[in-house]
């Protein structure tokens, strides 16, 4: 059985847009989380192939999810997808173990390149 992909974003539009941009193999097995707390609960219960994580969210933000993930070693492939594109924020999420930083709005080519680069998609 293939592992699912988790898409965490408080915007329904952003969740759907991201799913649509995923390569077909990955797009068929997707779970959604609507905020960081929701994502963390799911990550504790399942092993995901990759987690796409928004930063600016209610309840729990993406940075807090990364901090918990670092402590609990839940998923080693987290890709941050965010509108908060400040260089300091990009550095911070990398320090917290994020694999890559994707700026919103997402470009399809860029996303596929990143997935290939990290061996998530061939």
């Amino acid at each position, binding site marked *: 059985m293939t592992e699912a992909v988790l898409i965490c974003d*408080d*915007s*329904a*539009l*952003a969740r*759907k*847009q991201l799913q*649509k941009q995923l390569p077909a193999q990955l797009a068929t097995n997707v779970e959604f989380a609507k905020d960081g707390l929701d994502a963390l609960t799911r990550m504790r219960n399942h092993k995901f192939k990759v987690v796409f994580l928004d930063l*600016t*969210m*209610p309840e729990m933000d993406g940075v807090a999810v990364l901090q918990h993930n670092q402590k609990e070693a839940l998923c080693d492939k987290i890709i941050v997808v*965010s*509108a*908060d*594109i*400040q*260089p*300091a*924020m990009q550095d911070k999420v990398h320090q917290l173990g994020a694999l890559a930083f994707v700026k*919103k*709005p997402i470009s399809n080519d860029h996303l596929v390149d990143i997935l290939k680069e990290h061996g998530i998609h061939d």
Partner: protein
Amino acid sequence: MIDLSLTEDQRDCLQELVNVAMGRASDKLARFLQTFVHLRVPAIELISAQVLPQSFAEAYADQGVSMVSQGFYGERGVRGESILFYRSHDAQGIARILGYEPEEATEVEQLTDISSILTTTFLSGLAEQIDNHIGYSAPRVVTSDDTSIEKHLQQLSFTWELALKVDISYQVTDYAFHCDMVLLIPGEAIHSFQQALDNILNEI
């Protein structure tokens, strides 16, 4: 009759476009200030422009307020007036945030500098996502007592029918400042917005 309301999907879509546009504005501000800007999810609300003067006069009744007003002109009926509201307390702190020496720039110049970064980066980011281009008129600063703010808003609300309120809170590393951004737009602009949102929603 203008339909003021957005569907739940349109609202979610607009919120996401606003988030992306706000992210750009924060990034620009952070580079300008050479600091980190902590970003919160901006609350958006679409209201009738008629209720705006009273609602803002009430919200800012306890203290002085400074307003920076700037017109914008896009394609397909997208046009309007962007207003940023600062509490006097926050306006005074802007010089510190900007790192200006006391005699280096007047409060009006400081407000104009920070407002044009926020307004133009935000609106250009929003326009780009709905395939539009926007031009701007020169910003005007209105700093005075509450009565004249209400009067100024009343004049504006005669011209424009709708107001998109965007509550912005910026926390700059060791200094917090809050401002409200209001986009006043005519009825045909909201139709253009709704159309643009539907186009995005139909694509996914």
